């Protein structure tokens, strides 16, 4: 028949390949896995769009680097193919997007930045037996549900709060204990409320008196009331825990109302670890401290990332750093798994001991999905930059506390 004669060589090979594959030969022998698909899921629209977009940049940059350097070596140079998805800051969209990513053949998922969304995405991913590397998501419930597919790389609320408190005590003691009273301002959703509760439990145990705890919504149009209360209470220390816009408004109002605490010590503060804040409100930002996610500034890879971000005109923020580092974690897991199989990737992630990444952590160790090696660092805004002041091994500057001329 004419048809047989026109069978091309390619078609025959393809057909043979398919036949061989269907015999169940191992993945490595089968047509070399050309790509490993990874779902990159973040809220790039909706209320959390700024953070989601930043997060996506971090993942994208590392993926580009990995592919440029030859892809995953143990998979014969397989490139990483990112599938970008937008969870629109909504839980139902998050679940739908996880399903789509699974259907599109994603080997695992990175994201979705927000705690509430992570609770939903990890569950949805578990249905597909797919690993969900959670980039931020500080709420501890995420790693307390016994899901074996969850891997949160960054520290959670409990760890951040306890580290922040330990370091606060150290800084305060070293300066002769100028700070005794505290005022807490927090946003009123998951992370702020959780944080405030922990602080209210723990601060008194360390000898601090809490003069007030004020919650506010996101967004908040005006901070004058809160600042007036702060002014009336006259605390030594102000502790904000909120998102960027509110952080900035709050600090502006502090300045306008001439409130001058001895120090501003944020914990997961929205603006304090954002270079944007430093540039746009430089005078008001001086000496503000934060305990937040931040990279290890001494590592060459961190410096290279900083330069790349500056060149691409992307703000230097923790979302970028964490997602970049999470991609490093994923890359390492893929190399060890030597497979794009979902179950093998979960196993590889669970066994990860990676230290060669840009975050200032101990060796990776996942227990119930929580990275025990993770920790936040303390930063302080000095001049035009954000310096790391604690822990000492990662520090680029000495803490200045209290703010000069305010003791």
């Amino acid at each position, binding site marked *: 028949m004419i048809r047989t004669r026109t069978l091309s060589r390619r078609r025959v090979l393809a057909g043979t390949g398919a036949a061989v594959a269907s015999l169940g030969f191992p993945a490595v022998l089968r047509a070399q896995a050309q790509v490993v698909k990874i779902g990159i899921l973040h809220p*790039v*629209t909706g209320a959390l*769009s700024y953070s*989601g*977009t930043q997060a996506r940049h971090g993942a994208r940059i590392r993926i580009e680097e990995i592919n440029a350097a030859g892809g995953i070596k143990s998979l014969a140079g397989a490139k990483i193919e990112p599938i*970008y998805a*937008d969870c629109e800051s*909504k*839980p*139902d969209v998050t*679940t*739908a997007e996880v*399903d*789509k990513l*699974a*259907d599109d053949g994603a080997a695992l998922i990175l994201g979705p930045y927000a705690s*509430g969304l992570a*609770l*939903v995405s990890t*569950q949805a991913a578990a*249905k*597909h037996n797919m690993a969900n590397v959670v980039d931020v998501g500080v*709420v501890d*419930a995420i790693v307390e*549900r*016994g*899901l074996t597919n969850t891997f949160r790389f960054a520290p959670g609320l409990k760890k951040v709060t306890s580290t922040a408190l330990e370091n606060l005590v150290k800084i305060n003691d070293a300066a002769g204990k100028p700070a005794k009273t505290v005022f807490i301002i927090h*946003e*009123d*959703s*998951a992370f*702020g*409320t*959780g944080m405030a509760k922990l602080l209210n439990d723990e601060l008194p145990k360390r000898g601090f008196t809490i003069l007030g705890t004020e*919650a506010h*919504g996101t967004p908040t149009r005006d901070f004058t009331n809160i600042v007036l209360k702060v002014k009336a209470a006259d605390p030594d220390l102000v502790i904000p825990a909120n998102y960027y816009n509110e952080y900035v408004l709050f600090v502006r109002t502090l300045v306008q109302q001439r409130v001058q605490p001895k120090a501003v010590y944020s914990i997961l503060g929205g603006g304090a670890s954002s270079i944007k804040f430093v540039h746009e409100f430089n005078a008001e930002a001086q000496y503000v401290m934060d305990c937040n996610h931040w990279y290890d500034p001494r590592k060459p890879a961190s410096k290279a990332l900083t330069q790349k971000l500056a060149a691409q005109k992307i703000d230097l923020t923790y979302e970028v750093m964490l997602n970049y580092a999470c991609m490093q974690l994923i890359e390492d897991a893929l190399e060890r798994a030597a497979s794009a199989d979902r179950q093998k990737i979960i196993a590889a992630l669970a066994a990860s001991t990676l230290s060669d990444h840009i975050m200032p952590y101990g060796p990776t160790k996942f227990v119930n999905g929580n990275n025990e090696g993770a920790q936040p660092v303390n930063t302080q805004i000095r001049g035009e930059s954000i310096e790391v002041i604690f822990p000492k091994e990662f520090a680029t500057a000495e803490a200045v506390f209290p703010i000069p001329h305010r003791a």
Partner: protein
Amino acid sequence: MRRAGETRALIAAGILLAGLPLLVSSERWLGFSFLALLYALLGQSWNVLGGFGGQYSFGHAAFFGTGGYATAVLQARWGLDPWSGAALGVIMGALAGAGIGAVSFRYGLRGSYFALVTLAFAEVFRVVANSVAFTGGGVGILIPLRTDATNFQFADRRAFYYVALAFLAIAVAAAEWLTRSRFGARLVALRENEAAAQALGIDVFRVKLGAITLSAALAALAGVLYAQYFLYLDPAIAYGPAMSIAALLSPIVGGLGTVLGPLWGAVALRALGEATTELSGDAPGLNLVLYGILLVVMLRFLPEGIAGLPRRLHQALSAERHHA
């Protein structure tokens, strides 16, 4: 004639929906179908009050969220079984509806005023839920994960789909009842002309109250379903404007005051959302721009919603015949 046609449509839709999971096996499309049914249920609840009754609520999230939170709190904090939790959730939602309705209608609120007061109530619920401990406040509430049919959590999405279908069937039955019952006739009468209805001796207050209670119960049912599927609620999800808007979108797009309108609307809108996401690639926001534009176009050409499509086609075709 028209009745028979509608009943046939109902039966056809029912068979189609019942058979869907046999044709669809991918998790993604099962999930899509489930969500379409959930939003159809929410839309149908709004339709009872807004479509049939002509009272537009901008705060249906108040009922949706109450249903969801009630079942979540009862399970998570008091260990109640989820099926009883679901029933109680519906009852509490209905009570919320009766309460808000009693206050609003007692003071004669209508039209935009009624719409705005429901919006305000939903916001009050949200602010309160955010501040009290038993809802978990801003942290939200998590229903413990334990996959088991008795626990109203199913490993197989198909099971969720059928539960949603059953719930939707209840809502559709309610709507169908409205088209056939005296109560429904009174409701439509007061929608068309409240003063005349009153003059005819209809107890407008009681009818409206009945409608909002029924509407709220169905919305709460949707809330319960949502809670069981996602296992997480926070004040923004439960009581935020997103759900209130979703509630009114599908009936208006699908056909106000029709029995199947919310279903068509929900399916169309979700499909529209999927399509626009596929078409617009990775650029943030572009998919929603497209969605909005297509929504405007849809409203321009289908002012009576999708349910009005057959009539408009018929008109267009017969007009052509006349011209030709």
